[in-house]
């Protein structure tokens, strides 16, 4: 396993400290934007474990947000007497378990598909989950589900969830970082590059794909549980969202598909642009996201990090040129 470089760790820790101080200095609107940025970054990282590292781009990860959220909510409904922290903890476990079971079951058939077929099949899975959630009364999808308030009394809910998202995002980042540097991660990379050759070289491709799928699903589900608590009340449409399905791909594409920090950068940038820059222009959100997607595909397939990398490569090449 390759060592993480010390400067990188220091930079990340510094960023975390700066981000953690956010709610102390920012007005409530920006704290909420910050929540969304951190939540989206966490989701993007969870997605990229399967999509960016292994190359299996899923168009339906919102399924796990929904499954995680509703599993947690339904379980917590039965626990109304317990202290809020415990309720949240149990909810997280319930959400994680539900996602683990669903993803493990779906993984066997669905990972036999490749490329676009896999992407669309996942979209299908997401919609099936959403429809079942909405139409089967037990899930209370159309009725809606209430979540107990879990923020400690002494802390503003806004701040509490901000820090919770930050902590969760850090956990996901650490896991993704660890995976990327491990033998498992090298295997995923080889699967992305050329799955058949990887198998020939001895990579246990089927097992690795399934592992990546389940890890990605569980982490997504955990974030979904936090999201549901921050909303307080959810219906099917609040969590099983097609725009989320799309956004998850855009974050990684915008930041740099296949990289570790690309999805984080992409999430931060996209959320900031939509929520802050275009705040007054609600009617433009679809248009702006679509335009951004078109521009990235045509002009910057390596995303922001790809552009940065090309820039530095060109600088280095120019510097190495002998003086004419």
């Amino acid at each position: 396993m390759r060592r993480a470089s010390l400067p990188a760790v220091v930079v990340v820790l510094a960023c975390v400290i700066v981000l953690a101080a956010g709610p102390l200095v920012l007005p409530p609107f920006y704290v909420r934007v910050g929540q969304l940025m951190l939540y989206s970054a966490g989701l993007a990282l969870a997605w990229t474990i399967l999509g960016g590292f292994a190359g299996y781009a899923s168009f339906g990860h919102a399924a796990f947000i929904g499954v995680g959220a509703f599993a947690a909510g339904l379980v917590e409904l039965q626990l109304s007497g317990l202290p809020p922290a415990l309720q949240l903890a149990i909810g997280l476990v319930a959400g994680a378990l539900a996602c683990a079971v669903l993803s493990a079951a779906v993984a066997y058939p669905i990972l036999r598909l490749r490329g676009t077929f896999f992407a669309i099949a996942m979209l299908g899975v997401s919609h099936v989950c959403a429809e079942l959630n909405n139409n089967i009364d037990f899930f209370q999808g159309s009725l809606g589900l209430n979540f107990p308030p879990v923020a400690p009394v002494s802390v503003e809910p806004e701040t509490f969830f901000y820090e919770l998202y930050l902590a969760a995002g850090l956990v996901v980042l650490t896991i993704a970082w660890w995976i990327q540097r491990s033998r498992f991660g090298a295997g995923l990379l080889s699967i992305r590059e050329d799955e058949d050759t990887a198998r020939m070289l001895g990579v246990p491709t089927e097992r690795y794909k399934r592992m990546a799928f389940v890890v990605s699903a569980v982490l997504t589900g955990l974030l979904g549980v936090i999201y549901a608590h921050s909303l307080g009340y959810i219906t099917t449409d609040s969590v099983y969202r097609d725009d989320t399905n799309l956004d998850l791909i855009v974050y990684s594409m915008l930041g740099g598909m296949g990289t570790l920090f690309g999805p984080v950068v992409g999430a931060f940038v996209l959320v900031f642009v939509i929520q802050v820059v275009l705040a007054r222009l609600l009617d433009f959100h679809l248009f702006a996201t679509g335009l951004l997607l078109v521009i990235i595909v045509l002009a910057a397939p390596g995303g922001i990090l790809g552009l940065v990398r090309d820039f530095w490569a060109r600088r280095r090449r120019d510097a190495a040129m002998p003086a004419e």
Partner: protein
Amino acid sequence: MSASSILRVDRLSKSFRGLKAISDVSFAIDPGSITSIIGPNGAGKSTLFNLITGYLAPNSGEVHFSGRSITGLATNRIAGLGIARAFQIARPFRDLSVFENVRIGALFGKSGPRDVTATTARALELAGIAHLADRSAGALTVGQLRHLEVARAIATRADLLLADEPCAGLNPTETAAMIDVLRRIRASGVTVVLVEHDMPSVMEVSDRLLVLDAGSLIADGPPHDVASDAHVIAAYLGTPDSSASPSLSR
């Protein structure tokens, strides 16, 4: 046929819809040798490799590797037992560096990840591409890609390397470099079996030649014996009175 042959093929046959691609082929490979399989086009050389590595299942016959039967096993299982294959059409991991490409072989090869960096470095040395370690695989020439294929294959700590026309399309300098690599691999203890068309190189480097023609083994022995075998000459050039050969009276 020594009792400790590393690869033994017994009466192997494969038909495709009535056409006998491989017909009753038997041979045994000594460990630590370089054996070349030659023959006219369409003789079944690639089919033979596919049968040995599990891409195709034989209709009859057996394949044994280091004493155990591998007939009918899945390709990746056979790869895990210590047989590596280097393909003519290289399939590198394009976005990774040469080092990272070969490292995958070392990470997942036979008997698990051991001394990964050392194994990778050694494989790069043997294949003669240590100086390209940091170059992106997508930027290599065809010749360099062949070396990468071989490096990645031997990084899996394989005991047997099956090389599919490693010199195809290479110029004389590149061909000589590739032959050198195969010699170094033999010297490191790995057995090499190759399919090749480049006769001078084959004669120079092989300990033994197997000649296939129309699915059957028509010669098996040291290079010079095989080269002067009448059947072999007939297979490649035709017999003097056959209608396929050019007539001087035309």
